[in-house]
């Protein structure tokens, strides 16, 4: 469990980092952020890069701002920092709810928002939050900056739309307004483990009626899954047990998770339904309080 040989640079600016990533002789290059996923991959030799570009010194990637109803979280913001941010709690309650489920405090102290999203583990919380909220992922490469909608970003098992020489610089979400409530729940084998199934839900109420429901699931496919049929089932309805059941069934019918040692496919489907009922009910209750 010792990493193979690689070159290492730690540029202080984003421009220098992109230059290093896109140098013609760079070979197989990898970005190092918090290292909580990448360093284990190196030690297991599942990653064997020729060059590692450490972005931890790039301060411009480490800020949280809210402007004109848009929350922007720099990719290098530590998960723990976002978890404690009042701005995040208010503008993106779903993320604030989801963050404590990531590993343990020590991991969140190092792990970054961007690292988790770029890593794109299908069981991870932040990609699920991004998918749920239709976040915009901002990427910079040698050709400049582009914005990738979450629906196009997560392309498969640990794979994203990022090019090899691009750096994820920020995550943008529309700020949650009044009448919005969010909930995140997951089931893992132990405290801090990756979820077998996780569900994020955000509900906006208009009076007692659901104006908009957003639901995304982790752990049930090769990438985060939006429960579109459940969302549609909820829209325009009042949240009660029967509509929750209907939404859960609609969502679960579309799922075909795989089985592993930690949970069977049947288990994941069942728990997905349970968590959808639970999170949507909680999100709706919170939306009511937040009018």
């Amino acid at each position: 469990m010792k990493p193979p040989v690689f070159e290492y640079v730690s540029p202080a600016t984003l421009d220098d980092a992109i230059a290093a990533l896109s140098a013609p002789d760079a070979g197989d290059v990898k970005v190092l952020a918090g290292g909580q996923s990448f360093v284990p991959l190196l030690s297991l030799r599942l990653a064997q890069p020729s060059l590692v570009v450490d972005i931890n010194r790039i301060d411009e990637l480490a800020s949280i701002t809210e402007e004109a109803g848009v929350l922007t979280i720099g990719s290098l913001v530590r998960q723990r920092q976002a978890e404690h941010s009042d701005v995040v709690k208010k503008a993106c309650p779903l993320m604030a709810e989801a963050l404590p489920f990531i590993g343990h405090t020590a991991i969140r102290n190092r792990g970054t928002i961007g690292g988790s999203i770029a890593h794109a583990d299908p069981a991870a919380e932040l990609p699920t939050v991004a998918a749920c909220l239709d976040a915009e992922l901002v990427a910079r490469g040698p050709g400049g900056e582009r914005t990738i909608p979450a629906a196009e970003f997560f392309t498969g098992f640990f794979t994203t739309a990022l090019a090899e020489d691009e750096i994820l610089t920020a995550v943008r979400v529309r700020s949650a307004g009044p009448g919005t409530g969010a909930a995140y729940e997951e089931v893992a084998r132990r405290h801090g483990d990756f979820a077998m199934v996780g569900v994020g839900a955000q509900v906006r109420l208009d009076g007692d009626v659901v104006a908009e429901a957003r639901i995304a699931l982790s752990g049930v496919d090769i990438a985060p899954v939006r429960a579109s049929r459940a969302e549609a089932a909820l829209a325009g309805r009042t949240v009660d047990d029967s509509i929750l059941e209907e939404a859960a069934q609609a969502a679960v019918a579309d799922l075909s998770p795989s089985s592993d040692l930690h949970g069977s496919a049947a288990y994941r489907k069942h728990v997905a339904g349970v968590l959808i009922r639970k999170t949507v009910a909680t999100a709706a209750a919170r939306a009511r309080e937040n009018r």
Partner: protein
Amino acid sequence: MAGGSAISGLVGASVHRKEDRTILTGTGRYIDDVQERGMLHCHFLRSTVAHGRIVSIDASAAREVEGVVRVFTGADMSAITEDLSFAQPIPGLHSPSYPAIAHDVVRFVGEPVAMVVAESRYIAEDAAGLIEIDIDPLEPVMSTTAGLADGAPEIFGDVVPGNVVHTDEQLFGDIEAAFSQADHIVEQSLDQHRWACNPMETRGGVATYETGSGQLTYEASTQTTHTLRFLLAGWIRQPIHQFRVTANNIGGGFGLKFSAYREDVAVCAAAKAIGGSVKWVEDRNEHLVAAGAAREEQLTLTAAVKADGTLLGLRVTMKLDAGAYPINPPSTVYAGLVRTTLPGPYKLPAYHFQHHIVATNKASYISLRGPWAVETLVRERLMDKIAETCGISPVEVRNRNLITLDDQPTKMITNVTLENVTAAETFQKLVEMVDLDEIKREQEDARREGRLLGFGVGTFIEPAPGTQEFWAAVGFPFGSEPCRIRIEIDGKVTAFTPQTPHGQSHETTLSQLIADELGVGFDDIRIVYGDTDATPFSMLGTGGSRAATMASGAVVYGSRELRKRVLEIASHILEASVEDLQIADGVVSVKGAPGASVPMAQIAMGCWLAPEQMPPGTNTEMEFVANYDGEGGGFSQASHACWIEVDQDTGKIAIKRFLVVEDCGKMINPAVVEGQVIGGIAMGVGGMLLEHSAYSDDGQYLTATFMDYLMPSAPELPEIEIEHLEFESDKVVGSRGVGEGGTVLAPAALLNAIDDALAQVGRPRVTETPITPTRMLELLGVIEKE
């Protein structure tokens, strides 16, 4: 405490651990801390095929890598070593010998196929990646059922015919009569999964060969330096008098580090061949894949019982999945332990036990904290099923069958005398501490709210250390325990124990005993362990929960002998009779006349420097080797109660409360006892709910990192409440071991609680472990089994 240890206060107190300063300040010496001059590092290339024939291996590219010193293929290694053999004159035991590095057939994923020695571990791993090996796959045998099937591939050919390593049956009492008198026949079976020791420090060692003297030193992470030395010496062709095995801090063992392994052979042989120092530290990935795992057994019990729940007879069959390669001890010991212990603290008039130990294409079956534990698990679950069948409570069924102190001495049906066994008394106390009616009410209330609670109990006896008869029945020696104690020239004390403590706090507990016996300060005592050049021989090192009785006894007797010598000399100097003398804080004085005193340091200095000037006729040897026979040995015992809540939506099990009533006799240090109990229960709970050393059907290993092999962590564990009974025997040393019992009994109480919850909703009992959330929802009938 009866018996008469001369107690001046430390024994029985929760004295702070001597070990902690070193461990907590990070100044210990674990294997990875060891640095020798010119030390090289090694890495093992391991088979990725479960069963196959090695067609070719080409290490030429690896040998070219800069920094690589030597590459050993199986053939290279076999040229300088003997095959490992654990064969013993046990009738019917088929124990194949095997090379340190495979050169012919591989039999499990993780088996070493080459070893690279290089200037760094990094380079060794780089080079290992360049070794080309071609293995022709053979059909793997991945379960006892597959191994015993007609026409199954014989993984050791005719060395282990039919893959049966050992089979035997033993009959005690009149089993036919028992069954013919039965009102009920109660059957219970369990298929227990593999789980592993996973000490914080993995296996490893540093071997250093001095080419001038021909001396080899192996500093290892081992539970037993002397056994490692005598096993390895022959295999690596090293004269034993030129071979020293040492151990310093040891980051846990749990039974794993009782054997010598093929990697130990390879590391020592490589150091000899190269003429230098070679380090191997097993990484976690290797550890999970290759170090071996425990507990994979399938048992079926059939009990003959009377209508009132009284046991008449019991038939048991066991299949044990031994993995591929035998280690120490031979697997017959495990079968013997299960067979001998299974009747437990219950009256059982007739008993039949049959076992099959089966070779499969997995890493070795190894010892794990209470290696016999499945006997308690199946017996305690059977008791609950008998209760249900007879319409009585789990408490009542135990009360009707338990052997109480009044019944003793008595013999178990397996010919083991029970004396001073208080399992029934711990159970009684446990029952007094819980309100069974209240538990029933809470369960009913919870069910009305749609919640599901469960409650389970269990009781057992633990051979800690066991008795002569017990070990004879098992088929393993029960040696006496030595200790060498020395009063140094300044009156301070050094004791040399063959124990190799790796979490058991022997430096603390043995010091407490010596301090009380000799009247010297706790800090003026040092315990030396883990050095075959210094410590007296014992085959057992630390294992089998022997130390509380055996090592304690050795230091008590050793201290008493030295005390006698000191007092005799002092009686001349102080002109007082021995009976009138006392020792406190290292000073001998006349009772009631504190002015008349002589420091032990003065006596010791005289004895060491000028023995001829000491009072004539006195024994001036300030060093003594005591041997303690255990005074017949004995058992520990405990009863557990476990409260759970089952989440019927997610299948998750929360342990709400866990209560222990234990009796390990006189507690030397209650904090140490409680630490062992809590740690043991954590391990037992983890084993049932989380830990799984899993293989796919084609023999791939599935849980090779801590992402998949799930150790219990603090949030998964309840607060554990402990009540102590301290039975006072008339033995000099009334202390019994307590390190393994938590792991043995907790699974039974937990599974009984789960079965209780299932019964409340009309669902069948658990028959297979681990109890994952998926399995729990399957048992509840919420989801289909795949």
